[in-house]
């Protein structure tokens, strides 16, 4: 609609302030990417330990260590992105509970407590039963920790591209993708072919579903709002086109192709390449989707 108005009126902005630029940049991309790995590895560890308890016992310690490292990376990038990072404690002492930032901070704190507890009971107390019990609670809490960023994007009223529940599904898929990819890299050849196939299928279906959703947003998103039309122009011939498609190919298409080949040939050596490709591509994909709505002039 706006295009027609411009064509009809020849309206040109002749004096205004400069566009504010990208406010949430690569640091927030790192935040989302690290969180996907930190919670995703817990989802996948839970699945494997329930389905293959005898063969996957060795993943307990490395899984929780990876989760601790990446959740703390997520928290680190969250804090350093604040313009007043030393006031971070305000979230806990002056909380505003309508904000998904506040809710996310509280949930993530609870999740950190659980995974630290898991590490403590496993490493210090050698208490596997307690670890497994805490893992169950960890999975329950990992779901909202994964989803809260989607809630935050939904609360970002100005950015029409980020819709709920689309973003929540993308967040879950990102966690499954990153979790299965990390587990494939972690387990290596210690996993049986059956387990590798399971992980390959999780990776492949997560990639396929996420890819389909991005494509559907690309095609159907512009049919509802002119702001989405303008936003998606940045990836439809605009300055982020190359990066967008690079992300889609590296995150989703290459892993899908390698997963298919692995399953077809019953040979799983390609899965590590698929895993690395998925993790790298996920960062690129998330970054593009984070940045493009910020390029739009709001006023």
């Amino acid at each position, binding site marked *: 609609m706006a295009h027609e108005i411009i064509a009809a*009126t020849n*309206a040109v*902005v002749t004096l205004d*302030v*400069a566009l504010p630029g990208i406010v949430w940049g690569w640091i927030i991309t790192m935040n989302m990417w690290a969180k996907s790995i930190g919670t995703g590895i817990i989802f996948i560890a839970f699945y494997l330990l329930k389905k293959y308890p005898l063969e996957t016992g060795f993943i307990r310690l490395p899984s929780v260590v990876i989760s601790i490292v990446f959740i703390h990376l997520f928290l680190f990038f969250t804090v350093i992105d604040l313009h007043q990072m030393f006031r971070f404690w*305000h979230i806990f002492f*002056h909380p505003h509970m309508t*904000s998904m930032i506040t809710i996310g901070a509280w949930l993530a704190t609870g999740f950190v407590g659980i995974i630290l507890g898991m590490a403590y009971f496993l490493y210090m107390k050698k208490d596997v039963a307690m670890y497994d019990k805490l893992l169950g609670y960890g999975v329950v809490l990992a779901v909202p920790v994964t989803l809260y960023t989607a809630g935050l994007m939904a609360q970002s009223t100005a950015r029409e591209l980020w819709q709920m529940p689309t973003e929540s599904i993308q967040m879950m898929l990102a966690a499954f993708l990153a979790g299965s990819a990390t587990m494939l890299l972690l387990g290596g050849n210690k996993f049986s072919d059956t387990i590798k196939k399971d992980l390959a299928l999780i990776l492949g279906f997560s990639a396929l579903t996420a890819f389909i959703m991005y494509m559907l947003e690309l095609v159907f998103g512009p049919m509802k709002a002119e702001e989405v039309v303008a936003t998606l122009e940045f990836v439809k011939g605009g300055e982020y086109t190359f990066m967008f498609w690079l992300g889609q190919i590296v995150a989703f298409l290459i892993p899908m192709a390698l997963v298919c080949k692995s399953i077809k040939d019953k040979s799983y050596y390609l899965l590590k390449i698929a895993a690395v490709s998925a993790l790298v591509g996920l960062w690129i994909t998330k970054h593009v989707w984070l940045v493009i709505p910020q390029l739009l002039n*709001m006023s």
Partner: protein
Amino acid sequence: MQLGFLVDLRLCMGCKGCEIACKVENEVPLSTWRLRVKYVDVGSFPETKRTFTPLRCNHCANAPCERICPVSALHYIENGIVNIDKDRCIGCAGCIMACPYGAIYIDPLTQTADKCTYCAHRVASAMMPSCVVACPVEANIFGDLDDPMSNISKYIQENQGNVQVRKPEKGTDPHHFYVGGGNVTLNPLASFRAEGHSLFNNLTHLPVGGHH
């Protein structure tokens, strides 16, 4: 009490008096604006005209910035103003992501969010916002929307059918109205914008010694 703003775009002549008054009153740093006047040129030569649109915080009844702020730095005060507590703000920029009007920025000096407060400090002392005082043509009208006898309520009544808000589809319920506005003035997507090429910042100079 529900304070609100109305700008009669038919009167505004783009003098930027309001912009400067706001800068001075609120010590708004260079490169940032709580209030600004946007110029949009319409038509093709010789049938052209220039429109002027003062843009500031809309002090929405359903303010996305207030909802997303994790520490209540952005909060309502009893007269309906969405105020900001800069000592509490953590600079997460969530409000910048949420505001559909691009009215919030990070103050480069304090590294906290900042925006128009309808000069809440002046209002508390029974004074008008500085932009209202500075406007030479009384295009800025400020008052209590709950009071049917206030200037703003009367103005809205007198101009029914010609009163608009920005982006009503966002459901933010703005308390900032425009009379005489249209797509070109109120919809940022309805005008072409070539960044870096505006009226006063793309000056060209004649070469030295060119004309003697």
